[in-house]
């Protein structure tokens, strides 16, 4: 084995190769597919997947999972519009509140998993249900007086327009990618995350605060989900019920297609970036091919399975 190309790096490269292959195929079959407008759309849509997948990846790295993403995202989106009431002056407080909701939900998830020993699947699924109920109840099924509010104009300008022709979602995504990479590879925290993910008992015996690390990661996952919610209302103007539903499957798929081990301890965010791009490229390509909805879903699922199968074979050689 070449020492420079570890299996982890190889998977990241695979993920980019697949993304590139899908995009080239689209470009050949559809002349408009490779245009900047079209690519730009792919990138923006992939950015939203990328945000939630960042949080999902962090908990998957320690062998966990976050199933509360859909309603943390949705809840944060609703909190943003109902508290800002579309007024620019209220934007900072509304942003803080929306992110705070995400952080709080994630923190509760982390405490449940790390201190109470609740299995991650159960804890986060329960949290998803609680937040769904809260969102529906407090907004009376999104019919409350303030529920018709739009996101404040500056936020909408930013995400609909962009900065110097570059979509804001894309800029934020680049920021998130940098942050994730720095966090995981250059900080002591990142080192501890991988140690906990690979062998939590040995990490504990090496003086790592395993519980603290776990709580921090779930909290971050909540923040990333809230961030995605904020940007989705910035993009679309108003929240809807079920806004976050597609993102549970997509976040998990992007993480595993990006080469992160679902068992924890291995993977890079750059792989997850490629995973997000691949998923969106496949969807866009199938739409361009005018494949009907049911066919798209089937092919989408199959593509993920094929990619994972390839990883599984790769792993057998390690």
């Amino acid at each position, binding site marked *: 084995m070449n020492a420079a190309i570890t299996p982890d790096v190889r998977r990241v490269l695979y993920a980019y190769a697949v993304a590139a292959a899908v995009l080239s195929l689209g470009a050949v079959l559809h002349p408009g597919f490779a245009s900047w407008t079209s690519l730009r759309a792919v990138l923006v849509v992939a950015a939203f997947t990328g945000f939630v997948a960042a949080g999902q990846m962090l908990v998957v790295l320690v062998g966990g999972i976050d199933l509360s993403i859909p309603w943390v995202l949705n809840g944060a989106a609703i909190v943003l519009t109902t508290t800002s009431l579309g007024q620019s002056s209220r934007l900072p407080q509304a942003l803080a509140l929306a992110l705070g909701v995400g952080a709080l939900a994630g923190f509760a998830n982390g405490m449940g998993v790390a201190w109470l020993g609740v299995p991650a699947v159960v804890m986060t699924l329960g949290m998803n249900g609680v937040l769904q109920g809260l969102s529906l109840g407090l907004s009376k099924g999104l019919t409350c007086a303030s529920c018709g509010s739009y996101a404040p104009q500056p936020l909408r300008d930013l995400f609909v327009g962009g900065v110097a022709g570059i979509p804001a979602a894309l800029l934020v995504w680049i920021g998130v990618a940098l942050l994730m990479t720095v966090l995981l590879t250059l900080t002591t925290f990142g080192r501890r995350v991988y140690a906990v993910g690979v062998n939590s008992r*040995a990490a504990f015996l090496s003086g*790592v605060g395993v519980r603290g690390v776990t709580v921090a990661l779930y909290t971050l996952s909540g923040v990333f989900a809230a961030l995605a919610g904020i940007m989705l209302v910035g993009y679309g103007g108003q929240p809807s019920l079920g806004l976050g539903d597609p993102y549970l499957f997509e976040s998990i798929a992007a993480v595993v297609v990006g080469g992160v081990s679902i068992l924890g301890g291995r993977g890079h965010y750059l792989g997850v970036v490629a995973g997000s791009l691949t998923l969106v490229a496949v969807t866009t390509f199938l739409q361009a091919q005018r494949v009907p909805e049911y066919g798209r879903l089937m092919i989408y699922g199959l593509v993920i399975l094929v990619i994972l199968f390839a990883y599984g074979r790769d792993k057998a050689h390690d």
Partner: protein
Amino acid sequence: MRPMSTRSEIPPSAAVLAVRAAGVHRAFGGVQALRDASFAARPGEIHALAGENGAGKSTLIKVLCGLISADRGTVEIFGQQVRRVVEPAARRRLGVATAFQELSLLPDLTVAENLLLQDPPRGRLGLVRRGRLVPTADTILRKYGVDYIDSRATTADLSVAHRQIVELVRVLAQEPRVVILDEPTAALPDRQVEWLAGHMRRLRDAGCCVIFTSHRWREIEQLADRVTVFRNGTQVATRDRISEAEAVTLMSGRTLAGTYPDISALPVGETVLRVDELAGGRLRKVSFDLRRGEILGVGGLAGQGQRDLFLTLFGARRAAAGTVSIGGEQVVIRRPKDAIRVGLGIAYVPEDRKAEGLFLPLSIRDNVALATLSRRSAGGFVRRRAERSAVTSISEQLRIGGGRASNQAVGTLSGGNQQKVVMARWLLTDARILLLFDVTRGVDAATKHDIYQLVADLAAQGKAILFHSSETEEIANLCHRVLVLREGRISAELPGPVGDADQIVAASLKEASDA
């Protein structure tokens, strides 16, 4: 329960071997558990397997009954080759039944369900007749004279001794041609040992081959027709009679003189660690002092509280009572993080590297640096240059991996190098007190020698070292003093270097037979 095999299958001639293993090799990761091991047992004999912990007895048993496969070599049961792993049903067809040391009962099932798990009473259509479970199990329990065990009880609720008995009854009830019992008496009180001995003799007289292991020499002398002694993964002798003294010599195996560094010349300083009436887990009020520059051995039979002592001192398990003082000041260590702190400076090198020490897919650098990350960081960032130089210098000092790149995954290293990686992590913490728990387990001879020298050097530098090893010989030769633990208490203290491992083994054995 139907018999699994009929007696008529047993060849009439005793010249045919019941069990034959030849040239068996078996490794786990980098650890060679069996090397060129051979073993033979006849029908109609009780054959004891003796040896220290880690000598390869349990591995041999697993290979013999087809639970794991041998890397090389042949295994035959009544002349029939056992290749690869054998499924339970096929194992019973071979006529082999095994009671494992780590019991194979399912804790959440009832005694009846466990007893009849492999062969439940069936009705038409092959469905299990649950109504017949309890009566059938009761019949079996009565047949083996243990009807004091309630077949409807949940297995987890039984005492360890009763669980052991259920495991044994399950094996006996299969009426096998070859019975293998791994440490069957470890958890049994005397009266049940007699009960088991009776059944072993009955099976032998019926022409069955009975193989068992025990750490109690008295049992081996009373029960066994022949004894095979194992050491370091291979058999060193098979005899009809072996005296205890001779067996101890065979089991511990004298290493050539000069293998161990001379520690008697090393000066011992003031008390660094004082442990007072420490209890918790298996520990019952243990008190001792550990001095600067001292290597204090902790010996005794396996599982007498040694592990709990080490883990409690390191904060990895809670103490139920007692106090620990370091440098004259009483300290409370709640978790390993506290123990590692510069002020206390305790390091624990675990026995089971893979489970407790290593991060196999991560690099040498990540593994070595982990316990001291925050000491080489600025604002939460790793100071990479400082890290590189620290890792490089300690790697060179310990000669890790023959100068392999520090970004190499630890999983690719040999067992000896992996152990050095764990040692390196703890040496970087600059601890004053080192808790070395069986650090030479599964390590090749050359690395063992390196580690002995390293331990002596560390003591010479003034470290206080608590040393446990499953190889009693190491404790005998490498320690200034030896504490013998028995049932969580210190039962003897021997001045060192003891030199003669037999003394420690004798001290532990004598105490155990009194129990």
